């Protein structure tokens, strides 16, 4: 489903040292697979996600999604993005639109669904993430956990083939992390292809097919969550896990 090969990405800021975010990065993600990416901050986890829908342009290498090289000049990136839902650390709900409008908008302007059809889809998804009763309020009136669940519904409304989560629970108060993780777990069990950047090892253990540990733009170690809990091989991995567990 997703095939990244030899991807390089360096952030260049004038006057500062170049930051190598991805160095010869390669991985394969199969349809229906749930991949959890962990690693210290600055290790390139988020950059990898952002390269998958071209919020960042890669310097070299190939990213093939569903058989399409997304960095090909002829590719309409908006068409690719319709198929890849993304959930952000800071939710990024549209504050001038109500909850249901947030979920409807892209369906109507991108997928060209009728308003009725879009509302129907939106209500179904808001019900699924357990927030239907708030459909007519503005995001500012919701808690962080509620906002993030709306953001997930908004991404799902496009009926994407892949869902990406970029530290979706990192900005939440501890007591709200559970409600968001529950929604993500449900999705995982339904067979959604998911790429999840997170520090929630509990989530990784429960639903992930594979855990990837990244450092300095490269994969240091990968395996099942079980492997990471029982016998991680690299020193770097052990050190990192000892800090987050």
């Amino acid at each position: 489903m997703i095939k990244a090969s030899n991807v390089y990405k360096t952030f260049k800021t004038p006057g500062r040292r170049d930051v190598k975010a991805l160095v010869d990065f390669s991985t394969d993600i199969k349809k229906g697979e749930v991949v959890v990416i962990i690693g210290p901050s600055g290790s390139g986890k988020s950059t990898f996600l952002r390269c998958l829908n071209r919020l960042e342009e890669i310097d070299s290498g190939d990213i093939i999604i569903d058989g399409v090289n997304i960095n090909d000049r002829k590719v309409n990136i908006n068409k690719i993005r319709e198929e890849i839902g993304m959930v952000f650390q800071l939710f990024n709900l549209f504050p001038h639109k109500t909850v249901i409008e947030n979920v409807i908008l892209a369906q109507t302007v991108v997928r060209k669904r009728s308003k009725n059809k879009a509302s129907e889809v939106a209500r179904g998804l808001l019900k699924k993430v357990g927030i239907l009763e708030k459909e007519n309020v503005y995001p500012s009136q919701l808690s962080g956990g509620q906002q993030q669940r709306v953001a997930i519904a908004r991404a799902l409304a496009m009926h994407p083939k892949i869902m990406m989560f970029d530290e979706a629970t990192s900005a939440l108060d501890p007591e709200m992390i559970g409600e968001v993780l529950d929604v993500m777990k449900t999705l995982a069990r339904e067979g959604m292809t998911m790429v999840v950047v997170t520090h929630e090892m509990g989530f990784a253990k429960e639903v992930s097919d594979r855990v990837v540990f990244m450092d300095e733009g490269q994969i240091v170690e990968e395996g099942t969550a079980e492997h990471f809990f029982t016998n991680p091989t690299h020193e770097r991995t052990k050190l990192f896990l000892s800090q987050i567990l």
Partner: protein
Amino acid sequence: MAFNKRSLITLGILAIITVSIYYFFTGKGITYIWHWEKIPEMLFYHGAKSADDPIVRLRMGVLMMGFVLTLKISIASTFFGIIIGTIVGIARLSKEPVTRGLSLAYVELIRNTPLLVQIFMIYFFVGSMLRLSAFAAGTAALSIFAGAYVGEIVRAGIQSIHKGQMEASRSLGMSYAKAMRHIILPQAFKRIIPPLAGQFISLIKDSSLVSIIALADLTFQGQQAVARSYYTFEIWFTVAFLYLIMTFTLSMATQYIERRLAISD
């Protein structure tokens, strides 16, 4: 409590100013015979206009005609100013260097030259080439002038929107244009209402400069009326009051819009 100590002090100061103005005009410093009774007919009168138009009916006086023209030119240039400003504001943030450079040149050129000179240039130079009427030339000059300022306000507004908004929109498959239209600009405009209101209030007042190209706006009509009648104070006070009606209404309207849009905060 509505009236506290501070409001009483303010009221006291206002009272002193009012009394001073009264003595200034009625005291020995100046002898001026007021003819306020001549003002209403400059606003509205009942009668015939001339031999060519002898129908007796309620007609607009010169000041009211000027008021209407100022209103028209202000509305037209506000409208075009917003359009130009939005385009320029977006162009200023373009990744494409030519677009960015041209929009910057426009802003700098217009902001750093006097409006009066711009009006002259557009009326006498561009206007005579394209055979523009004084109204069209005046509207064009004011729109181009407002567009430069509005452009900078719009740019600041767009830049003030968190970049996550654009990223979220794009990640849902929206094109740059759709994201701008549905997500970024609505939020930016909400945020820039106060500076925009200030800009357009200025524009209404700046529109008095078009009187220089013989456009019969409120200021022009006021000048003419003073020259004919010598009721200098009465006419200029009335002119100022008529401008105040326009600017104050705009001020109130924008505050209303601001309150309306605040529901999502």
